[in-house]
């Protein structure tokens, strides 16, 4: 065994500098590990993928024909929005709250992990899960409910899902800095479910009381829903205000989160 150990003094020169390719490799390894971790965690993957699919299948397809021919199309947008919120809120919020509590974040910060690798890896994971949700629901809409969608519309919906997860990543990140440990899933559900309801993802907004309709633009999910509606051809209004609002939400939550992380670790 001794012969395998090379001495510290033998490698003294190269120590402090790291070639760019190796730094890039560290980002890749981090992303790979994060994805593997969650793929192997059924308690995260199953609810995240199953809830929107089962809800869509029940309320959007089997029970929706009574509500007219456009119901499956309308609810496709709603349930994609609903589904996309989860990987952002839970993937960031719950995991950050747990990892701040169980020492993993401290270890990663002590190790020479490239700055940003941790967040980028989680973001990539959330994006992939969001894309998977959009594809599953699209598949059901096209093959089960026979919703007539053009290739452009499908592409637009997947793109909306993939980019739309980002404000919820930022929001989850901020929530994860506020709470620590095992209480996180409960608290994040308390944010997630009411927000979905109040944005009209479960019941169309016109069915809700007037004052709830008026405060709907407060929630980022309302704006993402508007964009998803537009992608499937159900919203002909202006899109830029909604997109800019989401960018604003993302920036504000990111700012709040980094401030808290810097102060409290």
């Amino acid at each position, binding site marked *: 065994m001794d012969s395998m*150990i*090379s001495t510290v003094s033998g490698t003294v020169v190269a120590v*402090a500098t*790291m070639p760019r390719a190796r730094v890039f490799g560290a980002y890749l390894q981090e992303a790979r590990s994060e994805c*593997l971790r969650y793929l*192997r965690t059924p308690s995260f993957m199953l609810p995240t993928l199953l809830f929107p699919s089962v809800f869509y299948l029940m309320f959007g397809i089997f029970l929706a024909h009574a509500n007219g021919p456009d119901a499956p199309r309308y609810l496709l947008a709603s349930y994609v929005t609903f589904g996309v919120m989860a990987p952002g809120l839970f993937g960031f919020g719950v995991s950050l709250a747990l990892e701040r509590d169980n020492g993993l974040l401290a*270890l990663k910060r002590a190790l*020479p992990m490239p700055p940003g690798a941790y967040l980028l890896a989680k973001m990539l994971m959330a994006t992939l899960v969001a894309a998977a949700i959009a594809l599953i629901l699209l598949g059901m809409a096209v093959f089960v409910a026979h919703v007539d969608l053009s290739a452009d519309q499908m592409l637009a919906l997947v793109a909306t899902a993939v980019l739309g997860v980002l404000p919820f990543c930022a929001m989850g990140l901020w929530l994860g800095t506020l709470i620590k440990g095992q209480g996180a899933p409960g608290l994040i559900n308390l944010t997630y479910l009411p927000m979905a309801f109040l944005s009209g993802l479960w019941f169309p907004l016109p069915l809700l009381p007037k004052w709830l309709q008026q405060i709907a633009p407060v929630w980022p999910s309302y704006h993402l829903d508007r964009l998803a509606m537009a992608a499937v051809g159900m919203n002909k209004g202006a899109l830029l205000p909604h997109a800019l609002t989401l960018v604003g939400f993302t920036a504000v939550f990111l700012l709040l989160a980094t401030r808290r992380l810097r102060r409290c670790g």
Partner: protein
Amino acid sequence: MPHPDDPIARLDGVVKRYGRLTALDGAELQLRRGELLALLGPNGAGKTTAIGLLLGLIRADAGTVELFGQDPQRIQARRRIGVMLQNAALPPTLRVGELLRLTASYYPAPRALAETAALAGIGELLQRPYAKLSGGQQRRVQFALALCGRPELLFLDEPTVGLDIEARQRLWLAIRQLIAEGCAVLLTTHYLEEAEALADRVCVMAHGRVIHAGSVDALRARVAIRRIRCRSALALEAVRGWPEVSEARLENQQLHISTAAAEAVVRRLLDADSGLSELEVQRAGLAEAFTELTRDADAASPTDQREAA
């Protein structure tokens, strides 16, 4: 130009407060290339805070914190260290080999996977998910992660907690091997025999200050107390009354005496009891020295700040 004798880790007059609690109150610490320094102290003495500062996890309120002459929050400094923290829950679903590859990817010139595994004795665990390992195996994996980057300085925070004696000695052997390669180690431990077995120098902390820094022998020598054991017919009460005796008790029919004047007490014992047998005289161990030092510090400190760290 850096000099080989420059300290590779340094705390100088460091103050760290948490609200009204002062966790570190002018702490001084220096670690040189290739040495093993054991950081000792009761809970709340400031050890965790000192380590947190040197790892760049927290910032000092005052004073200088340096790692290889740099701010520890700079990644260039931390690329030269390995870290094993006391309570870090690694991702349970990742396999040991995956954890090693991930951690090694952070470093410029890491060891080969097989070399790391051999050093830490985890060769047969590489395919296993981390959550399926026993507590002792998990500690070995954490040790492997600490050394995989070929560090010049290793932070080991209570590395052998929860290990059985055999596993502990195997880990000590691996640590000695790393030191022989030229790696320096900053060790915190509750086990004084661990410090005694491994350390070149010990640093005792209490109330946020370093109250002693020196070799293990120097620490022992700071405590003049020696222990005498013997079988004797003398009454315990009589021996207790002797002015040189600071403490006396009976244990398993043996008389145990603590004293600063061992020669005088032994002479008097032999004079008083001609049938005395099994006489032993020992210098106090590190444990006694440690207890005595921290008790003095407790007495000297006006406020109790044990909660701080």
